[in-house]
């Protein structure tokens, strides 16, 4: 059965009633922590308190509710540091998705619709891009430039634009073959109008879904880079950096490597569940992504 036999894909307001509340709650909390910053965190995230060094989480012997998730080797409050890390994750995710999404979508649309040589060049570019593993790309970039937030964003954009481009290209090519677009062309409808009326509404949904699904990947990527010391640098705080710090104390303080990891996991999990939900609502044909 052809995909177009599905009911019209209006924005399904009725379906919005069954929102995935738990993931949205987690994402909302991350967002609030990112916006609120130090104003709402219980401690100064960089504030040292050597007396609290290696304080375990509150529910363990020796823990206190002053440091609910415990403290690190320098006695910094882990909860406050996790909250501070939200900001970095949100900023990286926002810019990375914005840039890689727009570059990839534009390239994909142009290549998919016009085909021919433009398409061949794009496909070759994607192939080349994919022959350098993204972490390796990050490594040489980090070696060449100052590591930091903007390097992280650049690396992610360089890695992910191709992902968008390929999917959007495929979708445009599939749409282009539809009879209603063939009709529009034979009836003399201009290319910009065909894009606006028939192609962009479809692509828009796909982009929203891809963007949401990418949030988790971006957060993981940023954490990995920061963990290696190639991403966010001290004194900025990121979850990956926290894990990197806590790693050498793995034998004394299990919470040091557990808590930021759980923050990463919950955020990614929520973003992925929400993305899956969006995809099923907006674009049921992309299920295998």
């Amino acid at each position: 059965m052809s995909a177009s036999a599905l009911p019209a894909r209006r924005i399904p307001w009725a379906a919005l009633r069954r929102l995935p509340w738990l993931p949205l709650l987690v994402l909302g909390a991350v967002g609030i922590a990112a916006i609120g910053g130090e104003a709402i965190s219980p401690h100064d995230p960089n504030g040292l308190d050597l007396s609290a060094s290696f304080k375990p989480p509150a529910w363990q012997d020796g823990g206190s509710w002053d440091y609910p998730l415990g403290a690190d080797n320098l006695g910094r409050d882990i909860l406050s540091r996790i909250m501070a890390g939200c900001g970095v994750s949100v900023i990286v995710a926002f810019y990375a998705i914005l840039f890689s999404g727009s570059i990839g979508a534009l390239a994909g649309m142009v290549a998919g619709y016009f085909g021919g040589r433009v398409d061949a060049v794009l496909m070759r570019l994607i192939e080349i891009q994919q022959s350098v593993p993204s972490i390796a790309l990050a490594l040489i970039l980090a070696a060449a430039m100052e590591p930091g937030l903007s390097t992280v964003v650049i690396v992610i954009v360089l890695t992910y634009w191709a992902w968008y481009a390929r999917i959007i290209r495929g979708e445009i090519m599939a749409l282009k073959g539809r009879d209603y677009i063939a009709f529009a062309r034979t009836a003399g409808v201009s290319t910009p109008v065909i894009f606006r009326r028939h192609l962009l509404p479809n692509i828009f949904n796909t982009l929203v879904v891809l963007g949401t699904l990418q949030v988790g990947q971006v957060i993981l990527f940023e954490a990995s880079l920061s963990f290696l010391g190639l991403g966010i640098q001290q004194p900025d705080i990121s979850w990956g950096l926290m894990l990197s710090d806590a790693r050498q104390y793995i034998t004394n303080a299990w919470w040091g490597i557990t808590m930021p990891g759980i923050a990463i996991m919950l955020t990614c999990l929520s973003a992925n569940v929400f993305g899956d939900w969006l995809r099923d609502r907006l674009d049921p044909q992309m299920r295998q992504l």
Partner: protein
Amino acid sequence: MLALVLRRLWQGAISILGASVIIFVISRLSGDPVVMLVPPDAPPSLIAEIRTQYGLDQPLVWQYLLFVGHALSGDFGNSYRWQMPALKLILDRLPATIQLAACGLLFSVALAVPIGVLSAVHRGGWIDRIGRIFAMLGQAMPAFWVGLLLILVFAVQLNWLPAFGHGTPAHVVLPAIALGWYPVAAQTRIVRSAMLDVLDSDHIRLSRALGTPERLIVWKYALRNAAVPLLTMLGVYFAAMLGGAFVVETIFAWPGVGRTVVEAVFSRDFPVVQAGVLFTSILFVLSNLLVDLSYGLVDPRIRDVR
């Protein structure tokens, strides 16, 4: 078939050439590369000498050609830190990385294929549900964190397996799991959706209508059809393993290319970084080439068409 092999080889060569351009251009982004090629306290005469020696006073395109020329003759320069040719350093470490990546891939495929197949067969059943939960969790956990947790539990707490180093088969277990953990989720999805597609096809329906036992339908007739997306997956994920190896090798002190390159970045040992990244790319392209060529083994249509 020979024409296909030649064409894929040619395309692979183009990709590697493209990768070398990327590596070259980025390595020049920061300005004067000589700074990275010499010790920080090098006298100006040495800098000038090296500049000429590496052709860095030449135009950029010429420099690139020189870089390629040297690379082709196996000369990536000497590692500043190790005082040996960068190429030899990388080649020495390459087997360990391949070993780790292969074990990681084996782990993930050994998990993903049965879970994916059973999830598709019992769609909506308990295996499907548990598989989905695991997939969800897997995709939300970075490889390095999985690695740290594994060390925490199996090395620190239980003391069952070694956390660091290389040598015995026991050493490879934890890093391979850490490396193979993340792709399990995506692989399960691919296997599951490929199987769902096949199980819904006319020829499987006909097989059922002619009384083929369900066991044969699933594990013989359907699975071989699903093998093409599966193979594509193998190529992509072996490549992903090579990328993941940079992180996992660092955690587990695995003496492979990844850890070497990461260390080289911090000591600004640029020849090693260039050689390491380029060789990862070559490995990457080669694995995809192998996968492309193996399609013909499972799908007779491809043997004839191209």
